[in-house]
Structures are given as structure tokens and as C-alpha cells.
């Protein structure tokens, strides 16, 4: 059952990621990226990461992609913007470099160095466990992240001001 779900949703994730890269229209790319994020959320559930799966859907598919769609529709890009094909040689070179990177990554994964998996402890991946870690071992990174978010809010408002 797990491998069935893995192949289904992994396949959809890869297909929609390819569509993100190949769609001419930015709105289409954003919609397929949302689909890809939902599939990754299902994969997180398969990996027993319940809390991460929920914030994947809420924060990524919900908040961040809505922001992307807002900006795409605000910009009102002309069709000419999307349709041009220039620098075909550079694009082929870029795709070839990506394939070389993929081969390198797969080669690194194939080396049989990973030990056997450790059996999971009780309550693995739940909100309680994440909260315990977040407020004990990782308290300082948690607080720093809140400062980072504050800086991002101020920065975004200043950059998006009309008179800038």
C-alpha cells in the first residue's frame, strides 16, 4: 500500500514539476506547483511527518502560492512576454547541465552506505513532539526565525511602496 501511494504521488509530483518548468503561462506554472506541493504533502504523511504535512499544505500551498498568484495577476504581463524563444543554445546547455546534475545526484545516492533504518518511537512526527523540540533544543533558532519574519515583513512593505 505504501509503495503504491509513493509511486502514484511521486509520479504526479514529478509530472507537475515538469509542467511547472515547461508551461508558457505563469498562472499555469503556479497551479501545477500547487499540485506538486499537495503531492509532497501526501509523501510527508507516508513518512510519518504529520505536522510537516499539515504546514506544507497550509503554508506552502495556501499562503506562499496565493502570494505568487496575487503578484502574477498584479503584474498583468503581456502575452509577448511569455512567447519569445531566444537563446535556444543557452537553454539546451542549461537543460544538459541539469541532467548532468541529476546523474551526479543519483550516482551519489546509489552508493550503498546507508545503514538499516531505526524503528520509529511512539508519537513520531506529531505536533506534540515537534513542539517539545521547538521549545527546548531549538528554542534560539525559533526566536531568530520570528525576527527574520519581522524583517521580511518590514522589507516587503518598504520595497512594495508606490513611491519607491
Amino acid at each position, binding site marked *: 500500500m*505504501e*509503495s503504491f501511494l509513493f509511486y502514484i504521488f*511521486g509520479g504526479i*509530483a*514529478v509530472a507537475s*514539476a515538469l509542467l*511547472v*518548468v515547461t508551461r508558457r503561462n505563469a498562472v499555469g*506554472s*503556479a497551479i501545477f*506547483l500547487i499540485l*506538486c506541493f499537495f503531492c509532497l504533502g501526501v*509523501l*510527508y504523511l507516508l*513518512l*510519518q*511527518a504529520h*505536522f*510537516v504535512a499539515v504546514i506544507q499544505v497550509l*503554508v*506552502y500551498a495556501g*499562503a*506562499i502560492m496565493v*502570494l*505568487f498568484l496575487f503578484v502574477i495577476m*498584479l*503584474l498583468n*504581463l503581456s502575452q509577448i*512576454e*511569455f512567447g519569445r524563444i531566444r*537563446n535556444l543554445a543557452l*537553454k539546451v*546547455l*542549461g*537543460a544538459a*547541465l*541539469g541532467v548532468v546534475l541529476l546523474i551526479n*545526484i*543519483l550516482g551519489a*545516492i*546509489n552508493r550503498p552506505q*546507508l545503514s538499516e*533504518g531505526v*524503528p520509529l518511537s511512539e508519537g*513520531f*512526527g506529531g505536533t506534540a513532539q*515537534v513542539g517539545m*523540540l*521547538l521549545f527546548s533544543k*531549538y528554542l534560539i*533558532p525559533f526566536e531568530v*526565525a520570528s525576527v*527574520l*519574519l519581522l*524583517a*521580511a515583513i518590514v*522589507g*516587503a512593505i518598504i*520595497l*512594495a511602496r508606490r513611491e519607491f
Partner: protein
Amino acid sequence: MVSVEHYLILSGILFAIGVIGVLTRRNAIIVFMCIELMLNAVNLSFVAFARHFNDMSGHIFVFMIMTVAAAEAAVGLAIILAIFRNRETVDVDEINIMKW
């Protein structure tokens, strides 16, 4: 039972697709979305390793990466908006005011 290698291979494929998108697309917003795709590929391998080693620190790292991605999306999209107001384009080949 799906082994951790399966998840790592899927993560590698998604990351490579993101890299191809960044290298081949010229629309700044789509380049941005491909960067988000790469971040998600890394998140997947973090979660896969977290289950493999029964160590929930990986989930905290994913949490932090999502925080940084949200901040990056907000600031980056604001920059794209400001550039579009000044230059009337989001083509990364034509955004070269910092070049010289």
C-alpha cells in the same frame, strides 16, 4: 516498504527539474517558483532522513526552511513588483541595472 533511497531519488529528480527551470526560464516569477521547487525537494530528503534515523530534528529543519522560504517569497516578490514598476518587464535578461 519504500526505502529511504526511493525518497532520495525522487528528491534528486525534483531538485534537478528545479535547476533546469532556473537555468532555462527567463520569466523572473517562474525562476522564483523553480527555486521554491528546489527548496521542497530538499525538504523531502530531510523528512526521509528523519524517518530513517528516527530523529525529529529533520522536521525542525523543514520548519525553518519553510519560514525562510516564506520570508524570501515575500521580499522577492516585492522586489519583482518594484522592478516591474521601473522597467515594465520581469525578463531576467533585461534586468541588468546592477551589471556595471
